[in-house]
């Protein structure tokens, strides 16, 4: 049955030029493919991030809770975040990395908003987009409070498309 089926397939081209697969060719092909796969995989692993995906929380000590005035934005340049204390006393830590193409945004006190020098995206103090090209709100970092201190988990930025109240942390 099986044989018949194959034999009845229309044959194109002439038989001499058709490649027959015999055992030797099959194993040769197999070995070549396995070796290439092996190399490909090793190379790929070499290039992959060698840090684990969910890094352990690295808490950055931003300072005493009472130090932060309501309604103000505090820059932490080298740690790449801004700490904003809202009017109602809640905290949100915003990544300074622009969600458009990765430049570093600056807080412009006279316009009361974050502005990106690269392509002029602007964000509200809670991270919401005011002007494109950026389409996503600024990433934020989880916050914890301990011994009256604000601790910012700078290892784990959280992507979000918009701002919502659940992202604000209260003491």
């Amino acid at each position, binding site marked *: 049955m099986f044989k018949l089926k194959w034999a009845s397939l229309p044959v194109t081209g002439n038989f001499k030029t058709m490649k027959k697969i015999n055992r030797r060719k099959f194993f040769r092909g197999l070995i070549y493919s396995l070796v290439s796969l092996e190399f490909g995989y090793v190379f790929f692993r070499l290039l992959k*991030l060698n840090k684990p995906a969910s890094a352990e929380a690295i808490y950055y000590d931003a300072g005493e809770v009472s130090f932060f005035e309501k309604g103000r934005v505090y820059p932490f340049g080298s740690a790449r975040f801004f700490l904003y204390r809202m009017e109602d006393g809640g905290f949100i830590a915003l990544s300074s990395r*622009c969600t458009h*193409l990765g*430049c*570093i945004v600056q807080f412009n006190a006279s316009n009361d908003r974050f502005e990106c*020098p*690269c392509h002029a995206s602007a964000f509200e103090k809670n991270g919401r987009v005011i002007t494109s090209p950026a389409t996503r709100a600024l990433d934020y970092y989880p916050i914890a409070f301990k011994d009256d201190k604000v601790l910012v988990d700078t290892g784990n930025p959280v992507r979000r498309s918009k701002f919502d109240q659940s992202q604000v942390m209260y003491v």
Partner: protein
Amino acid sequence: MKHPSMDRAISKFFLHLHPKKIEPKAILFTRTFGLGGIAALLFVILFITGMLLRFAYVPSGVGAYDSIVRLQDELIFGRMLRNFHYWSAMLLVVVSFLHLVRVFYSQAIYFQRRKNWLYGLLLMFLVVSSNFTGYLLPWDQLSFWAVTIMTNMLSYIPFFGNSLANLVRGSKVVDEQTLLRFYNFHTGVLPLLMVFFMSIHFWLVRKARGVTIPSSEKAEKVDTSPHLVYKEVLAALIVVLVLLLFSFFVNAPLLDKAKPLVSPNHSKAPWYFMGFQELLMHIHPAFASFLLPLFVILFFIIIPYVPYHQINEGVWFYSEKGKKITFISAIFTTVFTLLLILIDDLLLDIGGWFSGLPVIFTEGVLPVLCYFVPIGGFIFYVRKKLKADRMELVISSVTIILVAYVVMMLVGSLLRGEGMQLIF
């Protein structure tokens, strides 16, 4: 020549690449404009100057910038060496692109040359990758932010964009890991791959019996040496001379040392990626950095495999009508693209008008329709009114794609200043 042995040595060397006898029309400068040969020459120049630069360069975040400064200021001919490498690299991108344009419009990519078109596309990719990986190495404000922007463009690709960008950078942001990675690709992996694929490329040109010429122009063959060899050596000398002079007077840019915490006002990707960056300003990233490029690449790959009614190998622009269509398409695309960029920048605020709808629709589907419906109309006009056949339609489409990219690239790199606003 007065030195017959020298003469013989040179000709023998060139005969590794060429057959002994060759069609007279294949030697005409206007057949190839020498572009493939110039690309090969530039590769050799880059290889040699790159080898020398490696002796001065330190591939680390701390050492890279200072080593470039030392090279420029303290080593004899150091600045010249860097300029020479830099300008050759930029020229190679331009020349490879023109070469691609040349082989397409002179109908040199069909039948037994199909495969070489594919190897050519691969080489184009390698040329651009080499240039891009080299771009980061000076580690100044220009290169640092250009690479930041470019790798972030990758992360807009749906599903795997983020992991791809991290894979390219070796990190979540551009840092020392990225520098090491780019250095190794730039001075190891990529040149090796290029030598390999260039060898195949040249071999396939010979296998197809040299460059394409129309069958009507075939004539009695002439000796390759001196007829072709003479022209090649002359062209090579001119290119080297012009490049050397240029490198003598025009310095490769070097800004301040990279400051990862301070972005400069308006950051741009390298100029050859500015078409994408411009596109990103108008269209949702899922389209601009993924769907449209994917579509264009697939289209370029299948061009030589489309079943045409007729192919006029070696005939520039296929036919008189083809020439006319190329011209009209180029003009139309230039005007239309410029107009749409202006309108989108100054008047349209689709996102604002339809703020209830999802972004992918307002920033993606709608602008794409705004662009492609008129383009479709134009192609329909070319087909109906000018009675274009399939080949002429493909020529028209390729012209539209190439011209649109070049226009966006020029607008992005030359007409945008602070805050990426248009400047006039």
